[in-house]
């Protein structure tokens, strides 16, 4: 098996464009959540908060590449460009069939899908559909748009597993490079805000509804007053590279990916379950050939839902007890859905680099049903060598990944 390292990262997040904006926002305890005035017209929508990302500089992407991109694909293309620049890789210098991308999302562009159905259902005139509309709506829209924009000709794949999409992308990229089939893969995910997206959680009572007038107070992962998740948007892309390939070009290495696992719960489509989370994390640690004591930091999935946070806390408690520090970044940036795994992994890697762990924003009082694990309430400076990233998704999908600092 080949070794797989991370040599670049790019982010478009609710805290701004670039990894620096993301980390500055997290370090300063900034919330990107705001009241969504424009959603007031939706009958039956109880949650009116979200964490939008700013769309800017999109016209730097040539029109003929941009026309097939919905909002999330533009985020993905910009994050991929950042990641590529960060890695120092020049695509023309790479063997063309050995470099590709794996980028996941919940669906294609939610905004574009909505527009397409407005035409199909109300105007009933197919001649009004722009030629590129379908390309914005496809499930692999972000992956294929990034590949077309950058001219990638190796593997091009999309992992569509809702909120676990981007961590599955990174995990799948790790397995493909480890198997020797590719040298470099841009891996991550993208998703975008739309009333239908928040609505999908709202109808099953998973959104935050009590903080519409105080948006910075929600979501509240692991907190006693948590009342649901807040949707965000953006994209996170990491450059995964075969270790020897990275060494040959003297690349900066953020970390080595040493373990990955994904599994289904087989029990419920919307409620996560501690038993299957334990199975997923245990499998990841086994794959990484490490014991639970070696994990220095757990970047939790914890979205602030009443049910999900409880199950994740129980699973972490079962494996780690009160040892490894745990925090969630959803309080700062909301739940960036299919992008969350990659965006939060990038943030965790930067915490590892700086030797500081940032606490869970809005965690003021630990909920009794989330006790027994090492919650961080304040920033902690410590040597971090090994991190665990969790992601769980609708459909009973779990994913977890272990990264280790290169010595």
């Amino acid at each position, binding site marked *: 098996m080949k070794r797989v390292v991370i040599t670049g990262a790019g982010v478009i997040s609710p805290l701004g464009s670039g990894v620096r904006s993301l980390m500055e926002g997290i370090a300063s305890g900034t919330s990107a959540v705001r009241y969504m005035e424009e959603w007031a017209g939706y009958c039956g929508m109880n949650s009116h908060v979200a964490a939008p990302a700013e769309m800017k500089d999109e*016209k730097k992407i040539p*029109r*003929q590449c941009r*026309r097939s991109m919905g909002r999330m694909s533009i985020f993905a293309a910009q994050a991929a460009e950042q990641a590529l620049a960060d890695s120092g890789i020049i695509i023309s210098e790479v063997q063309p069939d050995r470099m590709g991308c794996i980028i996941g999302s919940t669906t294609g562009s939610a905004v574009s899908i909505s527009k397409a159905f407005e035409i199909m259902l109300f105007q009933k005139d197919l*001649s*009004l559909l*722009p*030629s*590129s509309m379908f390309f914005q709506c496809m499930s692999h829209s972000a992956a294929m748009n990034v590949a077309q924009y950058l001219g990638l000709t190796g593997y091009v794949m999309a992992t569509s597993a809702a909120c676990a999409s981007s961590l599955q992308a990174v995990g799948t990229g790790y397995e493909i490079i480890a198997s020797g089939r590719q040298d470099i893969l841009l891996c991550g995910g993208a998703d975008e805000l739309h009333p239908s997206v928040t609505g999908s959680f709202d109808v099953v009572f998973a959104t935050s509804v009590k903080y519409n007038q105080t948006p910075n107070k929600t979501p509240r992962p692991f907190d006693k007053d948590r009342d649901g998740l807040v949707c965000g948007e953006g994209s996170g892309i990491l450059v995964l590279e075969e270790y020897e390939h990275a060494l040959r070009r003297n690349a900066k290495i953020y970390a080595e990916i040493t373990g990955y696992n994904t599994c289904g719960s087989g029990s419920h489509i919307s409620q996560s379950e501690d038993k299957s989370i334990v199975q997923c994390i245990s499998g990841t640690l086994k794959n990484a050939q490490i014991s639970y004591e070696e994990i220095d930091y757990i970047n939790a999935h914890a979205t602030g839902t009443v049910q999900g946070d409880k199950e994740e806390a129980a699973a972490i408690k079962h494996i780690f007890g009160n040892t490894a520090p745990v925090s969630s970044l959803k309080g700062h940036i909301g739940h960036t859905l299919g992008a969350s795994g990659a965006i939060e992994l990038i943030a965790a890697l930067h915490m590892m680099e700086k030797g500081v762990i940032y606490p869970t924003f809005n965690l003021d009082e630990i909920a009794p049903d989330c006790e027994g694990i090492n919650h961080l309430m304040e920033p902690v400076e410590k040597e971090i060598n090994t991190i665990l990233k969790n992601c769980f998704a609708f459909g009973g999908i779990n994913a977890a990944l272990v990264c280790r600092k290169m010595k």
Partner: protein
Amino acid sequence: MNEQEIIDITNKVFEESFEIEKDRLKPEAHIFTDLGLDSLDIVDLVAALQKSFGVNIRNEEKVRNIRTLQDIYDFISTIKREGH
């Protein structure tokens, strides 16, 4: 509708739908080689012209012969004159 109006409306389509600067919109400009449109763009061009001029040209055989902006001006002019 006079010829100048046809030119202005057509050029506006190219500016708004295809982000092409005004000074590149010369009558002799080839829509593929000079203005950079491709086969997918032609689908959107036809839709935009239909909407802008209130005509139905999707199944017109003559659309296939269009190469330059002047060809479009002439084509629209003919269509309008024939009362499509």
